[in-house]
């Protein structure tokens, strides 16, 4: 197994996804077979290859440094599962 159960638990924690034992088992199997498939790239010697950074041959445009506050606070808050006047509400972080 390329990705054992402890590794699954570790990356699930990084990705903030909770998993039960059964899911961890299945994912260890699935992710290992995917990583095995990916290992094919090791056949290639890429020591001297420059990695691709952008697929389009154009430099990014710059825009004027202007404030573009469109006064959309209410729109941004509209879909929040829990809000209080002008704030997103989350479970208490500081005791």
């Amino acid at each position: 197994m390329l990705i054992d159960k402890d590794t699954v638990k570790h990356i699930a924690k990084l990705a903030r996804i909770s998993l039960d034992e059964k899911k961890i088992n299945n994912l260890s199997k699935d992710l290992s077979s995917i990583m095995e498939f990916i290992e094919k790239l090791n056949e290639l010697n890429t020591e001297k290859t420059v990695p691709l950074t952008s697929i389009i041959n154009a430099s990014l445009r710059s825009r004027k440094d202007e404030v573009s506050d469109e006064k959309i606070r209410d729109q941004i808050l509209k879909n929040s599962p829990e809000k209080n006047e002008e704030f997103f509400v989350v479970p208490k972080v500081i005791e």
Partner: protein
Amino acid sequence: MSNISDFTLTKLVAGIKKKDFTSQEVTESFISSSEKSKKLNTYITQCFDKAINTAKNFDKKKDYKGLLAGVPIAVKDLFCTKNVKTTAGSKILHNFVPTYESTVTNNLWSEGSFLLGKLNCDEFAMGSSNETSFFGNVTNPFGDKLVPGGSSGGSASAVAANLTPATIGTDTGGSIRQPASFTGTVGLKPTYGRCSRWGIVAFASSLDQAGPMTKNVEDCALLLQAMSGYDSKDSTSVDRKVDNYSSKLTEKVKGLKIGIPKEYRVENMPNEIDKLWKRGIDYLKDAGAVIKNISLPHTKYALPTYYIVAPAEASSNLARYDGVKYGHRSKGNNLFEMYENTRSEGFGDEVKRRILIGTYVLSSGYYDAYYLKAQKVRQLIKNDFDKAFNDIDAILTPSTPSAAFKMGDKKDDPVSMYLNDIFTVPINLAGLPAISVPAGYDKNDLPLGLQLIGKAFDEQTILNLSLAIEKRANFKIKLKAWWS
């Protein structure tokens, strides 16, 4: 007169302009066929009442200027639509109602079209069979229990079953072309940067591109023209004039050089696919094109590269779904528990797999071995295409290694599912335009498509070549509406 919903997009636009029928009649016809299509499960959200009202207003105003004047269009539920629920096929966005409109849908509405509804797709566009949607599988109109392909499966089925005149989808590794091939429809992935990605739910930002899905090549040219263009809100959209694809569309392709890449003749490829490819070569020879054998030596590394790059970008993009700003929220005793429960309940299995792969390849100590390695191989794949295009104008390949398969066949084996995209993924990695055009049937009467790959921003040439194939293949969808 045959049923209005059988008509192509081009005929509908012309018919409305000539007053052969009204926008309201057109809209009612598609609503009627859509209402009878529940078995196909193509719609997530229907906007029929509003569409009728818009059509009535259109008929009063009689403004025929736009390219799509008076024609309703249903779109993949990955495009944000103002005040209309946008789910990306996910539970985590089941209640999300955008307060803004994506640029490409806005472009369609500016050309006189209006929204008919939102079409089912794989969750966050991750899938090749439309079996990962929170809103259930989509059925291919070519057979009960058959997948329509994915991720734009609802879109492909809706066009094939005459539920919408045309549609737009998105393509990250084949999500327009593969379902088009599985349903006997035309689907085009434009050059990266041709269409704005603003307001599209992001999957893998360096690969995602929106494109048209239609009944024929003529419609495809028209819809591409309507949706394309530079957008200051997407820094990767390219400021380059949009061609008049429709008026320049021609089947005169004499003298064009077509590359046939030997690496696309893969092991265990069904004989029928090989035969279809040969027939495609004959069609283009008949049209006066010159066939050249070419080599794209890094083709076999495209899928492994894709399954590093796409999940890495997805794991970053999907970090935003945390139960705070929008979408589903689960309970938790503290902030971290709330995040973990929200994401565990909100995402389906395939999305979790890809987030975890992406997190793994980007995690401390693995970045160089995986992500950096993949970006290097991606450069080699792009170099293959650059080199090939020095001598040729386009490349012809099959669109998919098989016809549509049965639901459940590949669901439990992620790698065998990924292999479906073997012919489409390299094109996304290289940022090139490609189209799937239906070219024949297999022994079970299931449609098969051919893929044409073009130079960057040369959508016109692949549209023209597709038209030459379409005229010669004389492909017709012959379906009884068994689902209604």
